[in-house]
């Protein structure tokens, strides 16, 4: 998962890393509570909360009724009045029911009240395709929330980051939305012991390179790294940047890379049109890095269609490693 990880280091799955972060936070701070559907004895649809209910009880690991709008709003109200809720949507798709509370309330109330309050709320969104659950259970909706001032929106791609970013989110006085790719839950990687935070708003260079910048999000980081390995074999040295945060976006890390490589490929799973890559591309195209661009900025995003059920079709609607390899080759072809 992380090319630089010595093998002796402790490995956890992404889901375990989230659980460990929640466990640490709950042990340290009584005000931290978990809310969501079937996060108690069931352990969560993706077994992320796991056994926490047995450790902290049903007063702090609260199964909500199937009421996404109400549940989210209760979390907003609780955050406004002294608690530090972590709210789990069972699938990010169901957040469509709660946009009112997330966007009209949580994101805006501090501003609307002239700074009189903060909303220290963390929400978790299991996202993405790959589970065969079809169109209503496979969306990547981070672009919606990334469009909303007042929110912070992150997409950690490794177990280490998801733990650190969840803990950073809990320290943050403002609402932080964590988009977790379902397929990552079982991926293992090095996770430091104990308490640490990973900053929100900072991208990470996962692989340094000089020929082309690949800026990827979430699970696409791993596909981009795989593509970069392949490309290295063909003499193309790709830099892979893990965006990590959609809002506020780390412009400087991306721009520095583009100034160096002169070429940019954005890779994301959300629908291509108006997806996260649109912002990355537009941000670069309006910056001083524009003058360093030697080729059009290429975006690889989700196809312009709902996610289908059939597994071959499902794979076809999101970028895969060969797609990245091919796109990068095309971009690099016309070296100036």
């Amino acid at each position: 998962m992380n090319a630089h990880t010595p093998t002796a280091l402790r490995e956890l799955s992404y889901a375990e890393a989230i659980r460990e972060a929640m466990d640490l936070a709950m042990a340290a701070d009584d005000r931290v509570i978990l809310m969501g559907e079937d996060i108690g004895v069931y352990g969560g649809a993706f077994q992320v909360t796991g056994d926490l209910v047995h450790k902290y009880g049903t007063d702090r690991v609260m199964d909500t009724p199937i009421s996404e709008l109400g549940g989210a709003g209760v979390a907003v109200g609780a955050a406004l009045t002294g608690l530090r809720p972590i709210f789990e949507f069972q699938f990010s798709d169901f957040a469509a029911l709660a946009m009112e509370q997330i966007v009209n309330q949580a994101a805006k109330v501090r501003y609307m009240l002239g700074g009189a309050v903060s909303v220290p709320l963390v929400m978790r969104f299991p996202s993405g395709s790959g589970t065969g659950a079809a169109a209503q259970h496979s969306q990547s909706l981070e672009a919606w929330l990334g469009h909303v001032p007042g929110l912070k929106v992150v997409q950690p791609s490794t177990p280490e980051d998801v733990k650190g970013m969840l803990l950073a989110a809990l320290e943050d006085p403002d609402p932080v939305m964590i988009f977790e790719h379902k397929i990552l839950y079982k991926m293992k990687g090095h996770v430091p012991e104990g308490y640490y935070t990973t900053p929100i708003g900072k991208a990470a260079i996962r692989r340094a390179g000089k020929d082309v910048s690949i800026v990827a999000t979430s699970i696409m980081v791993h596909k981009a790294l795989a593509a970069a390995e392949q490309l290295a074999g063909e003499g193309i040295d790709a830099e892979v940047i893990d965006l990590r945060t959609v809002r506020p976006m780390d412009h400087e890390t991306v721009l520095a890379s583009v100034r160096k490589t002169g070429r940019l490929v954005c890779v994301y799973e959300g629908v291509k049109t108006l997806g996260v890559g649109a912002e990355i591309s537009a941000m670069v195209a309006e910056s001083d890095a524009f003058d360093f661009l030697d080729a059009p900025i290429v975006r690889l995003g989700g196809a312009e269609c709902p996610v289908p059920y059939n597994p071959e079709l499902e794979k076809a609607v999101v970028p895969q490693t060969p797609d990245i390899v091919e796109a990068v080759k095309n971009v690099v072809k016309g070296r100036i």
Partner: protein
Amino acid sequence: MPDTQLEQNIPYAIRAYSPEQLTDALRKMFLIRKFEEGAEDSYTRGLIHGTMHLSIGQEASAVGSCMSLTDEDKITSTHRGHGHCVAKNADLGKMFAEFFGKETGYCKGRGGSMHIADPAKGNLGANGIVGGGLPIAVGAALSAKRLGTGAVTICFFGDGANNEGAFHESLNIASVWKLPVVFVCENNKYGMSTSTERSTAVRNIADRAVAYSMPGRTVDGNDFSAVTEAVDAAVARARRGEGPSLIENLTYRWRGHSKSDRNRYRTKEEISDWMGRDPIVSMSRLLVDHGILTNDGVAALETEAEQVIKDAIEFAAASPYPKVEEVTRDVYTVQEAAE
């Protein structure tokens, strides 16, 4: 002996339906059971991916509720919707083909278990969103009223769905506008792992009907005749233009919520207790007791159902997969819009 009993002691279903209709109902219940078992088996053998929600144990609710419907009448269904499909006369081959992700499936392999629909038969479809079908059913009832088709819509939903805002808004609108829709809550005691006691602030979900000034009835959802009696009355009321009703069928799902369920939230005793109240066994007994079928006749229906499922699976297995190049087909009705 049935024929010596007073009319009122004869169960409603026996009075209301012909032997052929009742036999067909039991046939459908067997088909549902065998379909679910076949699906489970195919899943275990790796022929189906994704997830699925089986309704074994709930067959009386699905079939009983649809008894008085025609193909003109609509239903909206749920993630646990296979039974509703069969009750609404679905083709089992197309259902399996959909499961197998084939081009011959109901959704051409794009939808899977959670989206099977059969508009031609009035089945507007399962839904992956809990509560998603509730306002859609109300909209179908609005169309029926405005277009004067005389059709009724049955809206199936679970106990878990009754805590969604969509439930409240839908029942309220249906009542205010007096629309021909019957809300059938299949209360199987749990929304995933969460019991109605822990999720629902009322004893019987049908008691919530008061909040919408509509009739509400709670019935034994494993008793085919009881389901039929309650739902038929509500359908008739809707057809007379008197507005919606809320029926609660108390039932139980034998299997876990989905394939990943470890049943941590309920006891083995509870499960086996409910398995002792098998709706197919009681329906079979009902038909035998009233001389409509012999025990051999029941057994023949079961065997026949097994064969239908076997054929359906074969059809599905032999069917072609969709072409990957056609993955963006059907996003829009007029294709170029997808470009």
